[in-house]
């Protein structure tokens, strides 16, 4: 669909307002403007099996201000984890940002991306847009043009941080959300991030674009976890991509719940020798959810290792497509990769597709395995639980939770885990 006149007028205005409000350096503003031009001129991509022709790319509510009362769930979550480094963004506005003094003393930087563009312009300039390029796709350009309220995390060389860094984005207005996260782990660093995106408003017609860039420098160990609850109406584009350098390891662990229309990519570029990555994502779709999820591993470094583990649970009329894609490029000698994609369809009206993809350009590959299954609950499992006295409804629920639990258990913050479980429990009733 063509962009509306109001978008063509209001969005550039929004862009200047953001740049002015945060007194952005000229290079950043120039980037935003160039990205906007790309967004306008780039075609809507064709995605196999997911039709974007009728999705609106319009920018609604050109100035993001919180329209409603604060999301209590988000506020409670922040209240439960007082000592955790946290950036809390509400409708694009930075609500709070805190990093404990001991971490700051070690040189750890954790703040909103706006703040970082001022205080650590050199780092932001060096890394922003290097992992997810504007040119990749229309919504990456959109993110670069209009990002608001994102987070910047920098962990210096050989610094290990035990407590996770929380990035919380709460969306209560109907305007588009454009969170942008940039994570840089220096050589030998080790830490985890917990991203939470909560959407409160239904029936927005806006387009959302979220971009996360993770740079895993040599021998770093980074866990990037996410939980998102998204609602019907808007079109959601989400890209999380990591650059994994020599001997580094990046793990994505995530849970998506909702009834939204979403196109999501979780990708690791295993650029370095001996690099490794794993992606473990669960998706719970209800209502008329439409999810197009691609978990991708691109092997460039020799002896690189990757593992993809996807679990989908679909109810009502939800329709999810999970692609697991491994690309072993020429030169990625002795690379190894495993994929597993299991989808559970709980309602006869729900639909699930699991598509494993292997592209192998290198002759010398260590191993490359994949497994995909789509099906209903196993009647033998239900029978076994019932044979011990557990009523059928309870038995079904236990088995579904059995699907989801191992991934949820890996989310690094207990209150987030509890929240995810509560929301999923509500959805699966």
């Amino acid at each position, binding site marked *: 669909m063509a962009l509306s006149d109001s978008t063509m007028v209001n969005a550039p205005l929004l862009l200047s307002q953001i740049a002015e409000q945060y007194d952005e350096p000229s290079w950043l503003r120039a980037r935003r403007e160039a990205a906007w031009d790309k967004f306008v001129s780039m075609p809507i991509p064709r995605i196999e099996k997911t039709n974007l022709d009728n999705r609106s790319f319009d920018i609604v509510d050109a100035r993001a201000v919180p329209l409603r009362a604060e999301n209590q769930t988000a506020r409670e979550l922040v209240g439960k984890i007082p000592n955790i480094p946290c950036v809390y963004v509400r409708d694009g506005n930075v609500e709070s940002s805190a990093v404990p003094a001991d971490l700051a003393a070690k040189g750890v930087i954790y703040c909103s991306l706006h703040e970082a563009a001022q205080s650590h312009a050199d780092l932001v300039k060096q890394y922003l847009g290097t992992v997810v390029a504007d040119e990749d796709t229309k919504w990456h350009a959109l993110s670069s043009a209009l990002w608001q309220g994102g987070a910047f995390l920098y962990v210096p060389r050989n610094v290990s941080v035990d407590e996770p860094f929380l990035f919380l984005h709460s969306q209560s207005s109907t305007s588009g959300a454009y969170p942008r996260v940039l994570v840089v782990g220096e050589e030998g660093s080790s830490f985890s991030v917990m991203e939470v995106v909560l959407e409160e408003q239904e029936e927005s017609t806006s387009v959302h674009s979220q971009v996360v860039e993770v740079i895993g420098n040599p021998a770093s160990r980074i866990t990037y976890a996410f939980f998102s609850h998204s609602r019907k109406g808007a079109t959601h584009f989400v890209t999380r991509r990591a650059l994994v350098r020599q001997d580094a390891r990046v793990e994505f662990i995530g849970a998506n719940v909702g009834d939204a229309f979403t196109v999501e990519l979780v990708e690791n570029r295993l650029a370095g020798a001996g690099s490794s990555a794993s992606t473990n994502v669960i998706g719970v779709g209800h209502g008329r959810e439409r999810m197009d999820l691609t978990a991708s591993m691109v092997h460039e470094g020799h002896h690189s290792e990757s593992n993809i583990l996807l679990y989908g649970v679909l109810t009502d009329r939800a329709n999810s497509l999970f692609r697991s894609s491994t690309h072993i490029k020429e030169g990625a000698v002795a690379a190894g990769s495993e994929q597993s994609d299991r989808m559970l369809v709980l309602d006869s009206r729900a639909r699930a597709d699991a598509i494993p993809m292997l592209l192998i350009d290198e002759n010398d590959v260590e191993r490359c395995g994949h497994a995909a299954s789509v099906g209903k609950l*196993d*009647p*033998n*499992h239900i*029978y*076994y*639980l*019932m*044979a*011990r*006295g*557990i*009523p*059928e409804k*309870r*038995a079904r629920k*236990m*088995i579904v*939770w*059995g*699907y*989801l*639990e*191992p991934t949820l258990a890996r989310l690094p913050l207990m209150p987030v885990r509890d929240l995810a479980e509560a929301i999923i429990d509500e959805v699966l009733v």
Partner: protein
Amino acid sequence: MVISDLRVSVEGKEIVRGFNLEVKGGEVHAIMGPNGTGKSTLASALMGHPKYEVTGGKVTLDGQDLLEMSVDERARAGIFLAMQYPAEVPGVSNANFIRTALNSRRGEGDEVPVLKFHRSLQAKMKQLNIDPQFIDRYLNEGFSGGEKKRNEILQMAMLEPRISILDEIDSGLDIDALRIVAENANSLRSSERGFLIITHYQRLLQYIKPDFVHVMMQGRIVKSGGYELAEALEAQGYDWLKDELGIEDESALAEV
């Protein structure tokens, strides 16, 4: 439990063909017989597996009509089936499973306190020589054949059923595991509890001495006796009995 003239079909074929038996509290009944004579079908049908269709007969437990009950109701009424091939259920921990099962049996408001449950579970696992790590492992996932069987007996010990049906609990067990399983089953013998033990071999019955031994052929009991019947079968095989009874084809699908 009283079984009268029970008939069970699988995929349209009648496998159990007029089975009669009464199991009282405190009694141990062994059902022996060659492969394919309907023993496991009987066990699964008593539990209510949806694949097994009861086409005739009656089963009562303490006067209640068992066949009218769903699988979970039968379990809560006191039927326990130690399965030949227990399912592996990923993501559901053993402890959570057993506790949920126990609480389902006890009913709302009478849930077993968590600490008490764990103490009792740990004590019983120790008796069964089960690695304590099994508490948090997923239900039967990656368990060896012997571990699965021991886990079945653990569940039986925790749930304290009225009627315990052991379906070839001896298959896949080495002699030490067999002894442990049998000792634990023996320790659960009581005047309140009846046992139905299904096995090919007399070996298990050396450890769990039955009060009654029944031989199943062609989907029904063809001979009953005491422990000496099991000994005779062990010594002489089933052919002797077939000759005596004039049975050529012992299978459940044989033309009669």
